[in-house]
């Protein structure tokens, strides 16, 4: 299965990838590929747009129409692609620094417009590409090169931000729970409107090492042991959920989508001019 997918969806000449051994970027990228494959949308109408970071390098390996942009701006580029040609399936690959820090404003506004784009954020708590600095999603008191004594920032839940900004599909999965992650991405892509999937990832090289999280396998096991399904979590007390990762679908609602609304406006204008 995996080898067929590599054969079909990856640009062989670009492999091997630049990622460190044990990095989960490959797992999450494969989950996206599986989701696209399951949906049978073909390769020609898929556009993958990414920002800058280890995770964002994924676009170059994939045999779609791919656009590797500037740091934080992938969603703004993707908005141009989607609005110009709404027939295209537009998927954004981004990191936690890319999307939650420098690109935060574009994220908010794309969610607000409910433009039909699917954003997959590889969340490894740090800036991998630049060597392990703290990102806005670093857990409080965890260490990074720019937070050598532990981060004093409060925890930041970007899924809540997405919901608040108006995203109509919001989910969280992990690099350990691959089957579920594939399903969440699949549903995000099928969903009409702005979809956001936060993929909890691991960076053994920087975040793992600095915070003594053990081997890549230990880190994946940590994801397994500390994740709680949203349905189960609903029956648990807040104290029990302290420090846990809630996974599953948070929001899946219908709302007017931006490119369709524009088209409707154009049709209305045609009538009113006649």
């Amino acid at each position, binding site marked *: 299965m995996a080898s067929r997918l590599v054969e079909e969806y990856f*640009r062989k*000449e*670009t492999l091997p990838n630049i990622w460190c051994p044990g990095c989960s970027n490959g797992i999450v990228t494969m989950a996206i590929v599986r989701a696209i494959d399951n949906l049978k949308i073909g*390769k*020609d*109408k898929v*556009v993958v*747009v990414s920002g800058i970071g280890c995770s964002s390098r994924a*676009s*170059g390996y994939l*045999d*779609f*129409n*791919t*656009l*590797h*942009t*500037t740091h934080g*701006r992938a969603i*703004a*580029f*993707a*908005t*141009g*692609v*989607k*609005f*110009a*040609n709404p*027939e*295209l399936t537009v998927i954004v690959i981004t990191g936690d620094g890319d999307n939650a820090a420098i690109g935060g*404003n*574009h994220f*908010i*506004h794309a969610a607000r417009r409910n433009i039909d784009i699917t954003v997959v954020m590889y969340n490894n708590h740090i800036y991998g590409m630049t060597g392990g600095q703290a990102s806005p999603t670093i857990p409080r008191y965890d260490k990074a090169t720019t937070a050598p004594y532990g981060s004093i920032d409060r925890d930041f839940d970007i899924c809540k931000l997405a919901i608040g900004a108006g995203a109509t599909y919001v989910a969280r999965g992990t690099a350990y729970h691959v089957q579920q992650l594939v399903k969440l991405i699949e549903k995000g892509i099928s969903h009409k409107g702005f979809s956001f999937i936060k993929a909890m990832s691991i960076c053994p090289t920087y975040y793992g090492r600095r915070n003594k999280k053990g081997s890549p396998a230990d880190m994946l096991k940590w994801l397994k042991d500390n994740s709680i399904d949203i349905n189960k979590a609903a029956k648990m007390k807040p104290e029990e959920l302290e420090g846990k990762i809630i996974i599953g679908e948070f929001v899946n609602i219908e709302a007017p989508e931006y490119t369709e609304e*524009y088209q409707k*406006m*154009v049709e209305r*204008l045609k009538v009113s*001019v006649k």
Partner: protein
Amino acid sequence: MQGNEAVVEGAIRAGMRFYAGYPITPSTEIAELCAEKLPFVGGKFIQMEDEIASMAAIIGASLAGLKAMTATSGPGFSLMQENIGFAAMAEVPCVVVDVQRMGPSTGMPTSPAQGDVMQSRWGTHGDHSIIVLSPSSVKEAYYVTIQAFNLSEKYRTPVVILMDEVIGHLRETVNLDEYGDIEIIERKIPEDIENYLPYKDIENGVAPLIPFGKGVRYHVTGLVHNEKGLPTNDTKIAERLIKRLVDKIEKNKEDIVMYKEKGEKEGDILFISFGSTSRAVEAAEEELKKEGFKVGIFRPITIWPFPDTRLRKIYPKFRKIFVVEMNRGQLYYEVDRVVKREGEVENINKANGEFFTPCEIVEKVKERIKNGF
């Protein structure tokens, strides 16, 4: 018609079907008119959250197959710079209008200036070339906008239209029929898409651009890339790429440059100015002529690449060269580079948010030559 309106009319005529922007004086009318008109011509208008996003969106739209434009002024132009560099590196055609206002920073938002001459050339980091056009009338704004789209498609490059507040808000009558059969350059889709290489050095140093979704899948990146668009650290490929990006503009300069000349072909004074300033210069020329001076005017419409070949031909026939601009001296440096006569280039500047009057130009010229040429 207003200058800003002429830009919109010209853009639509040239085939612009995507506009993304963020409001800023004195460019806002361009966004407003695009919002009003584009839905009726099958085009798309989107108000983005900022100028960084606007620039990003037009690049995305261009890759998806639409001719795209944004418009702004100084502060927004500063924000666009990183993505302008992306468009230059990834060779994505697009048009950026900068209706200059007085700066730096917020400066005087409603006052004219020409302070972005160097920024339009070197605003984004790294070695690159870019095309910058500056109209000096409403009619020319229409014409220049069409050429901006043509050049951006032909050379797969961002093109900047460097306007200023005076031209942006000026009202003049324009007869658009005059441009009835003007050529519009469309994107060609090559027949052999099997072996398509988006970054191959073909015609004029550029390959045709096939939009996303047409069955040819390729990679677009701001990283140094090979002919397929895939990233590489190969220094030879890097060298070749940067050279090609610069050469495709510099080596085709004679096709790209536009300029106008007026007055004497030889004589005492050669004025060099562009945009709205050249109108005050033309009035000053009339005045000086009456007083017996022999005066010529050289007005680049293409500022970058600078029409140096032409200037080299004409300047030796004049005794003194005056570069007149609404800044502290920017195009002056380029003219000084071209003119190989020590101390012969003088600048006449104004950077207080006020438009030049012909009188003050005349006075300044006379003062500088009072002890002879």
